[in-house]
């Protein structure tokens, strides 16, 4: 359908251009020739020559001057006459040249459009394959996340039944029951993670001191990701922000830093014109080049299946976009990574 439509559009464009070209061709190409070949131009030149001949009789002393003027006019008249005799031939040749140029232009346009169409097709195909591959990976992770606790719970239930049949004591039965409960709790956490991704609410923006939020965060989470040390780099600015959501973003970033083997995370507040930026810099091992372009896509993670869904950065960026700002990967190398939080200039509630 797309191909047919593109071809139809191409044919219509070429037909319209050709019609316009043919309409204008004769008018445009013959204008300059017709100006030179107007009968009154020729008549004026002939009269001028007659005048020169008359003048030589009236003023014989200046005969040579009149002769020069006469010769000049005659030469001009001769040229126009030669032009007139070749008019049709010249027009035909010029039109032929214009037609050739038009054909080349049309051909180039057609080739360009065709190549663009083919490229779009290839891109669409690649994007589709990417999407399918991503969904396959997601399905694999989901299956693993569910299958693990389910299998464990089933085995524990079988063991519980065996224990009950063989008259096990209450303590042993309680341990088996607790084990089943732990597996069910894992399933609950898994579904909760998805619930939080799917049910992200809109931020309630309030005017807050960013410096104060960072300071509190460093204090509250000082021992959350040992051995990572959190450092407040100083600076302050008032931003419109949902404090809880910002905290969630910072938690996600620090969790990633800890997994990247960072020893410290430094928060730095920067003002760029009217915008406020918060740089989060760690000294971890950095992000692999193959992942950098897709780092904010859902389900992109370096963790093994069963150890996390790769939703953290995706959720974090969504939260910052909802703030009217953004979250970008500023730089990353084997010496560390810097994420930049940009805050919007939105109106606070």
């Amino acid at each position, binding site marked *: 359908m797309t191909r047919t439509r593109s071809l139809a559009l191409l044919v219509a464009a070429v037909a319209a251009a050709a019609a316009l070209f043919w309409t204008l061709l004769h008018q445009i190409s013959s204008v*300059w020739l017709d100006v*030179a070949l107007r009968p009154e131009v020729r008549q004026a030149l002939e009269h001028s*020559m007659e005048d*020169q*001949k008359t003048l030589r009789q009236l003023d014989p002393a200046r005969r040579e001057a009149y*002769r020069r003027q*006469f*010769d000049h006019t*005659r*030469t001009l*008249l*001769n*040229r126009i*006459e*030669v*032009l007139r*005799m*070749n008019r049709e*031939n*010249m027009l035909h*040749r*010029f039109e032929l*040249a214009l037609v050739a140029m038009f054909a080349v232009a049309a051909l180039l346009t057609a080739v360009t459009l065709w190549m663009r169409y083919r490229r779009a097709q290839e891109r669409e195909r690649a994007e589709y394959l990417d999407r399918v591959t991503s969904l396959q990976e997601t399905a694999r992770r989901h299956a693993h996340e569910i299958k693990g606790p389910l299998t464990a719970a089933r085995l524990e239930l079988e063991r519980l039944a065996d224990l009950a049949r063989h008259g096990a004591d209450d303590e042993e039965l309680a341990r088996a029951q607790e084990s089943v409960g732990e597996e069910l709790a894992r399933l609950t956490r898994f579904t909760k993670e998805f619930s939080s991704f799917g049910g992200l609410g809109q931020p309630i923006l309030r005017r807050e001191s960013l410096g104060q939020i960072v300071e509190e965060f460093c204090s509250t989470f000082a021992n959350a990701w040992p051995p990572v040390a959190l450092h407040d780099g100083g600076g302050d600015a008032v931003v419109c922000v949902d404090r809880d959501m910002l905290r969630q973003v910072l938690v996600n970033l620090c969790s990633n830093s800890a997994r990247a083997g960072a020893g410290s995370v430094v928060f730095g507040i920067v003002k760029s014109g009217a915008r406020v930026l918060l740089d989060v810099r760690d000294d971890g091992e950095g992000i692999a080049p193959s992942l950098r372009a897709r780092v904010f896509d859902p389900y992109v993670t370096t963790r093994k299946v069963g150890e996390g869904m790769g939703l953290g950065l995706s959720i974090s960026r969504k939260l910052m976009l909802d703030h009217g700002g953004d979250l970008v990967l500023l730089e990353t190398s084997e010496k560390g990574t810097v994420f930049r939080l940009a805050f919007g200039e939105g109106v606070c509630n």
Partner: protein
Amino acid sequence: MRRAGLAIALLAVTLCVRAQQRPAFTRSAGVVAAALPSEVLQQASVKKQLGSGLTTTFLVAARQRDRGTITGARLEVRYDLWDEVWLVKRVEFDGKTERQRFASAEALEKWWRTPVRLFASDADRVLLQVELSVLPFSAAEEDDARAWITKAGGVGTAGGGGLVDALIGTTISAKPITSYRWNVDLALR
């Protein structure tokens, strides 16, 4: 029956006229010359062109069919509108050039009938094809007009004018306003 007779009569008249238009060939000192028919100058398109002020050029090409050699001559006629005289030039097969001016059309016609030297030959018999092409202007006038148009079009200077130059260069040319061809079995003994 009467119509068929009329057609035959017309054909006879046409053949007669065509026969009258043939050049008259002579040989003198081993050189073959042709006196061109006066009717050529009287033809309407030629007559009109002769008075235009441009140089009407008559190209005569003589091909000896039995030998395959081609020789020729050129006659140029221009009416000078200032002095109101006919300026003529004749260039024969061996490069011999003659220039003259005539005050009247009668003198021009007399000059026209003077045989034009076409080729040297000692053969008793020559199978000859003679072509006469009447061009409306000379090569010099053609070059001058081409240069003028190129200059008027603002091309021919550095950059970008090559295509237009080529177009003009291959477009302006003197197309014959009329031409004649005679096949002659020439006995020269």
